[in-house]
């Protein structure tokens, strides 16, 4: 019979000997499903959050001005032109005798750029047809005009075509009081309102997810216009984005670790069980190449089957998780799916090739004695290492999202393998009574294989623990970001001479007036003598702070607690400093390289002044309270032109009655209603928390299943050893104790080492990524210790039962396979 015929027979034989192959298939499938689900859901959350943020803002960035921007657009090259334009102004709407102040918004054909404008009973819509308007529900109530009836705006009459259910960029278009009215840009021109109104706001929105145009445009913005970005303005969602991104990265690392461990252990288990077959093939004259091809084909077949099934399962899992969340998800595209499949197949091959190459290079005689190591040595080792690095490099090239996770996983994995090896070495040297020593026989005498097994278990424990360790903190933090009764309405543009009047109205309405913060609009000119131009060229957000206006304020008496948590320096206290000093938000300071003692120079309305940095602050932007990047010492800004800003909780009423009084009395003041934003954010956080929780729980469940199958691959050898001990006179109790020791020790070591690494990892990640104080939960570590020991013991108990119940003659019939 020729080699090919022989291979065909052996291949069929492999498939028939199903036990281990099924285990391997199950493990790989589960791993693949897990990786798929985690990768896709992460991508969807990430895309969804980005989209959500940009949609709330009406684009990735925008330029707004009190006068038309058309001329400026004309000076721009075509690729820099905006995608959408909006003109908004407060005006009166009339229906019969009734009149109402409304917020008029003229939109172009492309509206809305992002998100959905939902009209009651009509679903998602764009800009209204000519002669028609979309109106807010409050207007219908207040005017008594229904859908289909006509209202007068300026010189034109419009028919109400529908009631706005949800306006995607309502936050961005805030700024004045009254219900919303949306109409087409051409219709707006026909009203005759544009050109005479004093408070028209022109806005151009840009889609620019990869921020290529932002830097170019920010240099070209005329001085009377303002450029703002979604990422910068939407402080709240930015935090969410960043932190959930980090958390998902942790999940991906964990999933990767689990899959890698699965692949390595499963393949090793399978190969160790085939040593004799391999020797036999060699003896029968089958070449090494043929054997390699046989096993590569076998693993590829298995891998593809696992990837197909795992992909399907992963898609189901992913959809299940998504079904629990809904809105903040966007489509993920094919990339995460393809990448997770490729990574899984790659992992399998990377796990399979080194031991295969090693085994096929060993002379059959040595294979027959079973005393072989699956470690590599010599030239071949370098070849494999080269291949591994190349594969890793390829993955890194393909999947930028996996870059950091992979690097972390690889270095963490290496550290664990080394530690496991050390543990095994130490175990071999411990003087111990008979039973634990017998239990550890296999461990200490074949350190390579034992280290792999122990590392596998340990890595699995880390992978399972890390998300659970971080989950609680992370979700608590998410929930804690949104205050229950935080302010949802802001008053801006309060003039200094209106300070008392506004305070009185608010005081009467709310019981005690909220503090009014002064706002000074200033340009940064120098930091420690370095000009703004050079500062703007720095990486990151520096250009946002160095090129555009910054809002400065002064610390109000007793306002220290609200201003944030000091991370360096100190507050001024009762004695004001000799010269002007400023407390700087840490992100702002970071972006511009500002530190304690730095000297900042600003320009406010043509007047230049300097201040020394006396403290750095961490601000919780999600609290919705008013806060400032730059907070000056009391009196430091006296005499400079400024306005005031304040915020309060408007209660349940849609528009608090006192606001009408305010606006009538002080028509220049604008009200910003962020109730919708807060509501949207809260929903977002809830959904995010649910999705991440689902992922974080799915991970350990699948991981535990994986571990179980992995422990089973070790079984055959154990049964052999145990039956032999039985023949030599080991009693029931002795065998049972040996297994208790073996599995208990293995589980405990893995749990301790894994727990240690996981806690260190969680500590590091909390500090560096989540910026929160890490609260180690001794309960969880203990739980894992107990869990890992219980799991391994249960598996060991199964093996022991099998041995205790079966006649040892089986051993003599079942010669080592």
């Amino acid at each position, binding site marked *: 019979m020729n080699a090919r015929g022989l291979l065909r027979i052996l291949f069929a034989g492999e498939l028939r000997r199903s036990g281990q192959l099924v285990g391997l298939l199950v493990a790989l499938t589960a791993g693949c499903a897990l990786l798929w689900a985690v990768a896709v859901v992460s991508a969807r959350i990430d895309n969804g959050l980005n989209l959500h943020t940009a949609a709330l803002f009406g684009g990735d960035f925008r330029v707004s001005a009190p006068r038309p921007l058309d001329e400026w657009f004309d000076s721009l090259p075509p690729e820099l032109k905006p995608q959408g334009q909006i003109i908004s102004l407060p005006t009166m709407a009339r229906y019969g005798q009734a009149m109402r102040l409304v917020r008029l918004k003229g939109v172009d054909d492309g509206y809305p750029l992002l998100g959905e404008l939902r009209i009651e009973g009509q679903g998602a819509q764009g800009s209204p047809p000519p002669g028609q308007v979309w109106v807010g529900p409050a207007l219908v109530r207040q005017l008594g005009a229904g859908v289909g009836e006509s209202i007068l705006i300026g010189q034109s009459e419009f028919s109400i075509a529908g009631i706005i259910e949800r306006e995607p960029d309502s936050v961005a278009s805030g700024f004045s009081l009254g219900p919303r009215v949306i109409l087409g840009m051409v219709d707006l021109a026909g009203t005759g309102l544009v050109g005479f109104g004093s408070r028209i706001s022109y806005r151009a929105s840009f889609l620019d997810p990869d921020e290529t145009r932002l830097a170019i445009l920010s240099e070209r913005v005329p001085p009377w216009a303002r450029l703002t970005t979604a990422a910068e303005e939407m402080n709240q969602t930015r935090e969410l984005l960043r932190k959930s991104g980090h958390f998902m990265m942790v999940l991906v690392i964990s999933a990767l670790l689990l899959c890698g461990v699965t692949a390595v252990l499963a393949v090793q288990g399978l190969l160790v069980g085939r040593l004799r077959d391999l020797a036999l093939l060699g003896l029968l004259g089958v070449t090494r190449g043929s054997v390699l091809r046989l096993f590569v084909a076998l693993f590829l077949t298995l891998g593809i089957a696992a990837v197909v099934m795992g992909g399907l399962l992963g898609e189901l899992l992913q959809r299940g998780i998504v079904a629990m969340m809904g809105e903040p998800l966007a489509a993920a595209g094919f990339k995460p799916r393809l990448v997770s499949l490729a990574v899984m197949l790659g992992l399998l091959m990377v796990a399979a090739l080194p031991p295969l190459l090693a085994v096929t290079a060993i002379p059959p005689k040595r294979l027959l004695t079973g005393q072989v190591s699956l470690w590599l040595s010599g030239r071949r080792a370098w070849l494999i290492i080269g291949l591994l690095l190349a594969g890793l490099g390829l993955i890194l090239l393909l999947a930028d999202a996996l870059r950091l996770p992979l690097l972390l996983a690889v270095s963490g994995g290496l550290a664990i393998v080394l530690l496991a090896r050390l543990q095994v070495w130490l175990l071999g040297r411990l003087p111990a009574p*008979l039973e634990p020593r017998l239990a550890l026989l296999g461990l200490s005498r074949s350190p390579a294989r034992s280290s792999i097994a122990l590392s596998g278990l340990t890595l699995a424990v880390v992978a399972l623990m890390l998300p659970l360790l971080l989950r609680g903190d992370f979700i608590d933090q998410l929930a804690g970001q949104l205050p229950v009764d935080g302010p949802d309405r802001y008053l801006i543009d309060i003039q200094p001479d209106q300070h008392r009047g506004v305070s009185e109205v608010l005081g009467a309405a709310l019981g005690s007036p909220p503090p009014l913060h002064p706002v000074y609009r200033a340009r940064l000119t120098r930091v420690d003598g370095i000009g703004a131009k050079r500062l703007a060229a720095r990486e990151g957000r520096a250009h946002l702070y160095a090129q555009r206006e910054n809002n400065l304020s002064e610390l109000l008496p007793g306002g220290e607690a609200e201003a944030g948590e000091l991370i360096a320096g100190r507050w001024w206290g009762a004695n004001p400093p000799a010269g002007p000093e400023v407390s700087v938000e840490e992100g702002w300071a970071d972006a511009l390289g500002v530190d304690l003692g730095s000297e900042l120079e600003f320009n406010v309305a043509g007047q230049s002044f300097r201040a020394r940095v006396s403290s750095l602050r961490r601000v919780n932007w999600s609290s919705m309270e008013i806060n400032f990047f730059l907070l000056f010492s009391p009196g430091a800004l006296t005499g400079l032109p400024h306005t005031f800003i304040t915020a309060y909780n408007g209660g349940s009423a849609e528009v608090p009655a006192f606001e009408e009084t305010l606006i009538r009395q002080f028509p220049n003041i604008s009200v910003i209603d962020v109730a919708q934003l807060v509501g949207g954010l809260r929903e977002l956080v809830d959904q995010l928390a649910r999705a991440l929780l689902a992922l974080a729980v799915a991970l350990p469940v699948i991981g535990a299943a994986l571990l179980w199958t992995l422990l089973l691959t070790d079984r055959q050898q154990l049964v052999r050893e145990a039956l032999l001990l039985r*023949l030599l006179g080991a*009693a*029931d109790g002795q065998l049972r104790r040996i297994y208790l020791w073996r599995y208990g020790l293995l589980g405990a070591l893995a749990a301790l080492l894994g727990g240690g690494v996981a806690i260190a990892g969680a500590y590091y990640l909390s500090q560096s990524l989540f910026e929160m104080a890490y609260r180690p939960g001794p309960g969880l570590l203990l739980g894992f210790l107990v869990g890992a020991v219980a799991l391994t013991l249960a598996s060991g108990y199964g093996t022991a039962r099998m041995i205790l*119940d079966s006649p040892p003659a089986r051993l003599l019939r079942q*010669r080592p396979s």
Partner: protein
Amino acid sequence: MTAILRTEQLTKWVTSGEQRIDILHPLDLQIQAGESVVIVGPSGSGKSTLMSLLAGIDAPSSGRIWLEQQELTALDEGELAALRRGTISFVFQDFLLLPALTALENVMLPLQLIGAEAPREQAQARLAEVALTARQHHFPAQLSGGEQQRVAVARAYASHPRILFADEPTGNLDAASGEQVIELLFRLNREQGTTLVVVTHDERVAGRAQRRLQLDAGQLLELD
């Protein structure tokens, strides 16, 4: 002389699909304490099967076995194991040493398992008897086949068993090594009074036993 092992209508069959294959036909046998018995017969005649049944490491399909006064067929696995402890030892064709233990540790193991005193010294004495003192710290993989089988014999005798079962102890050895192992087995049988049951194809072994049994297609015949 009293019978140390006795069987009554002992049979063994296996089923493969619908078909029943009889390995041993009803079989009555007595083995006296201190005897040396060889079982010969063509390949596939059921020698190893019979030996496993006699040693209580496999369960018969029907019939009964007594070890002295104790009926083996009435015991469960745990009780059988307890009964075997220190009473029955084995030597197999392919040695079955624990690869992770040195020669000395392999010999010590049964002593340690039954909690014997001074296991190390006893094991060293056994190894000296099989002339392997110099190799006591070597692992099985470092020993020749003959040396491994001598370690196995030393291990089998270490716990001073009442009966020693050996299945083709020389099957994997060349003539000279085989001779050494046979010599050892019978010497210890003589000196310690251990009952010796050997399954073999080897004429030299057969020639030295006090009693020879032949199995042929599951039927037992007393030779001589």
